[in-house]
């Protein structure tokens, strides 16, 4: 029964994507629904099963590790699959308003959307290094396809830059996989973990794979493509890009450094990754302070918030792992809400230049309120999920005496407050001179409510962390001090 649920997570969206491509007109809605609706059910059952057993492994095609590919569902991938499903469904609901399945742009949007969520589930489940390469490619192609669905010139330019860098990243990653396969004779990540020696070759393979993945995760020095891509993407696409696609690459870096090379003592490497994260936080926030477009501010905020995920390395420990994973979850929800709200502003007011948005809160109170709510979680202010993550991160940083990281987390929070309130101040200001912007297009309640729903989910994450953190604790490989 476990194999059926896992298969449902991956194959059902892919089949639905094919059907969505083939079926004419209104039937496509059926295919989309059939592709997305069973996912939460399957995952709910699997989470129950995971609660009992702690780890679920299925050999695809019946062949065990070195020969075949193994699917492995543990606490960490379960949390990310849940985030993927929530984003696919809720942001999908928002997309349904702009990309009706029976119209031309919907005809192109939905197959890619289904392939993207299916591919991400496949990536989160897979334990095979080469299979991860294939799923990463599918995720990247589907994401970039979605990026150019509206054929906006800036989006096109950003897409080409993103694709070139992503392909380069994949090549580096594949080079690392080649070395690992050469050394260990197996492609299964958890099997290779035992065999791979921390010698010159082992370290180089790890570095190559990490560099490749950091390009796809847009971590600080290699983040060049993210702002233009996320800033110019269509609303729902920028949400899924920021909330999931970038996170999946960071998830892989965690898998490599904590599972594959878990017991190699590389303090220098861990601190260096931490420093990259710190630089990302500062750089992203400063850029967000000077940008003029709301979506660019939110995009640079993603660059900053990704830095927090890299702080897991210098603060290695169970609590740090729980904290950064929970930050990943709550940031995913909050950032999706922010991007959807920004997209609503853009579509209905025709612009997202800060200068022209004065007094926007009178005409679109719900979306400005969503931006504020999601901002609360991004800042890590209480009752939000971000606060729980920030609290746990500070706790473990203090416990380990990492004063630098305490400082980085706090400064990150303040800078985030700076650029968020800068946006809110303009939105709530009284329109002084600018002409009364016509509220174009029908006031689509659905898109605003979806954005609000995601923001409330990010806040609700602040109240129910216990079960999620218990689930994450089962996945921690290294044991030792919290």
């Amino acid at each position, binding site marked *: 029964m476990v194999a059926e649920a896992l298969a449902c997570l991956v194959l059902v969206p892919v089949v639905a994507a094919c059907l969505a491509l083939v079926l004419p007109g209104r039937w496509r809605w059926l295919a989309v629904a059939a592709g997305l609706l069973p996912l939460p059910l399957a995952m709910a059952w699997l989470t129950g099963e995971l609660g009992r057993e702690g780890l679920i492994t299925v050999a695809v095609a019946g062949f065990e590790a070195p020969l075949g590919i193994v699917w492995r569902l543990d606490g960490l991938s379960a949390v990310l699959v849940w985030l993927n499903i929530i984003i696919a469904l809720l942001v999908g609901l928002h997309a349904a308003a702009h990309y009706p399945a029976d119209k031309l742009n919907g005809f192109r949007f939905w197959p890619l959307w289904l392939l993207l969520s299916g591919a991400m589930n496949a990536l989160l489940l897979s334990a095979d290094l080469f299979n991860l390469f294939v799923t990463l490619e599918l995720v990247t192609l589907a994401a970039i396809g979605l990026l150019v669905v509206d054929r906006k010139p800036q989006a096109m330019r950003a897409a080409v830059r993103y694709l070139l860098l992503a392909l380069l990243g994949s090549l580096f990653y594949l080079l690392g996989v080649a070395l690992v396969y050469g050394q260990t004779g197996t492609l299964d990540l958890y099997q290779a973990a035992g065999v791979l020696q921390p010698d010159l070759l082992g370290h180089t393979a790890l570095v190559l794979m990490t560099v490749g993945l950091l390009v796809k995760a847009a971590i600080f020095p290699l983040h060049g493509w993210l702002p233009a891509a996320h800033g110019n993407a269509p609303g729902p696409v920028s949400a899924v890009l920021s909330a999931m696609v970038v996170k999946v690459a960071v998830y892989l870096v965690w898998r490599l450094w904590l599972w594959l090379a878990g017991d190699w003592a590389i303090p220098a490497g861990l601190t260096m990754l931490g420093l990259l994260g710190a630089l990302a936080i500062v750089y992203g926030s400063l850029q967000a302070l000077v940008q003029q477009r709301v979506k660019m501010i939110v995009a640079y905020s993603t660059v900053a918030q990704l830095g927090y995920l890299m702080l897991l390395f210098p603060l290695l420990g169970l609590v740090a792992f729980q904290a950064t994973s929970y930050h990943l979850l709550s940031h995913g929800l909050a950032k999706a809400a922010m991007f959807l709200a920004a997209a609503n502003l853009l579509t209905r007011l025709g612009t997202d230049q800060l200068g022209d948005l004065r*007094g926007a*809160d*009178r005409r679109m*109170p719900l979306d400005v*309120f969503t931006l504020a709510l999601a901002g*609360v979680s991004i800042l890590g*202010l*209480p*009752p939000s999920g971000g*606060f*729980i993550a*920030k*609290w746990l991160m*500070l*706790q473990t940083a*203090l*416990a380990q005496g990492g004063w630098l990281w*305490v400082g980085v987390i*706090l400064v990150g*929070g*303040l800078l985030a*407050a700076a650029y968020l*309130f800068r946006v809110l*101040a303009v939105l*709530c*200001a*009284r329109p002084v001179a600018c002409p009364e912007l016509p509220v174009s297009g029908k006031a689509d309640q659905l898109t605003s409510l979806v954005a609000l729903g995601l923001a409330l989910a990010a806040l609700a994450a*602040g*109240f129910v*962390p*216990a079960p999620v*953190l218990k689930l994450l604790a089962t996945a921690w490989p290294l044991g030792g001090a919290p």
Partner: protein
Amino acid sequence: MTEWLLFWLPLAVVLVSALAGLGIFIAGEHRPILRVSLNLAAALAKVVLVGIMGLLVMAGQVPEFNFALLPGLDFKLRADSLSMLFAVLSAVLWLVTTIYAVAYLERARDRARFFGFFSLCVTATMGIAMAGNLLTFFIFYELLTLTTWPLVVHNGNRESFAGARSYLVHTLGASVFLLVGIIWLYQLTGGQDFIAGGYLGELGLDQYHSLRIVFWLLVIGFGVKAALFPLHAWLPRAMVAPAPVSALLHAVAVVKAGAFGLVRLVEDIYGFELVQTLGLDLPLLLLASFTIVYGSVLALFQTDIKKRLAYSTVSQVSYITLGVAIGGPIAAIGGMVHLVHQGLMKITLFFCAGIFANLLGVKKIDQLDGIGRRLPWTSLCFTIGALGMIGLPPVAGFVSKWYLGAGAVAVGREWVILVLLASTLLNAAYFLPLIKRIWLNEPARAWPAEIDASRLEVFGLVGATLATTGVAVGVGLFAGHPLSPLSWVTGIVTDYFP
């Protein structure tokens, strides 16, 4: 049945105004009747619920709501006697201020947004009052910052944004220190609840060095909102907010939250003996005294009425810190009871300032000449309030100053009386000229912006002001009465200093 009530009552009390806020947002701008009735109903309901809880607490029960966020970390609302003091104050004053605000904002825009965030602020204040441990306290403390920001920004013009930015910089900046301090404390002690007399004492911790650092971190965190000396700059600038906001928030809710935090810190976390052994009480005492004098001196030089009242608040709130820092039961009584008295008097003064500005456009002190003839009742209230602040007997202010002085003597810190005397003289120095202008000077030819407000509007404004003045005087006169704040505080203090 009662134990079910004991569990859910604290949450209900906190959530009443939150639900009202949500309702007001949904009711929106175009249904004023529904919005106002919803708001008033919620205010009444809250007062009733707080009343019930007061009775329960007096009967010795301790209503407590507990929800475990994480194994070592739980969200606890607990109504002990100290929290009741602050809860009753904010509940009653929320009702009065709502009436005042409805009348005040009759012709303003964005009222739905205003009243929505207004009730969310009161939710945060109620949450602070009834927080059972530092984590819950911090959650509502930050919520207070978030929900007051839109109110300060309400007018949407340039000055209000400058004021709001300074408010944010101060509060969010200090919350960083507060967060580190709280997490460090949780590191040392695990998730402890507030206990009368302080839980650190019993734990017998020996890391005195880190305890001192944590103490100062928390003092900075609470000091911002309590407008202690270096961190007070935001309060005068935040006076650009509309009068009801300045009245309830900057005279009662926000400022009192900081002071309440300091009281919790000294009384319920560290316990006064530990503070004394760590040698922290003297610096805190000096800081409070300096703020008192500094606030009063600056108030002298202000030409704008609300700015003068703001600096007077800066100094008055430090009385509470002073009372707690002196040590000993009597001074603690003085400090805590001043929490209520100062709230009542200061809100009256702000109400009057609001009426002067709203009806006659009088904002500067020199425009006050002869306003007594034009608005007799408001000016009377203003005078009573001002006299109370100076500390003349019948009004509440005198009681707390008396207890503070007696407490200082009892503990052997006579020099504190000098501080009290100096501040009383300064109070007189900056309030009496106003009173003289109001009653004795000839009124100018025409008021700056005379408007013919409807009878209902005037009745609402003046009625609310009269109510608060009456309570302020009543509390002073019937101080001995068992239900008065003074006797309530003496009850609190007896179980702090057995």
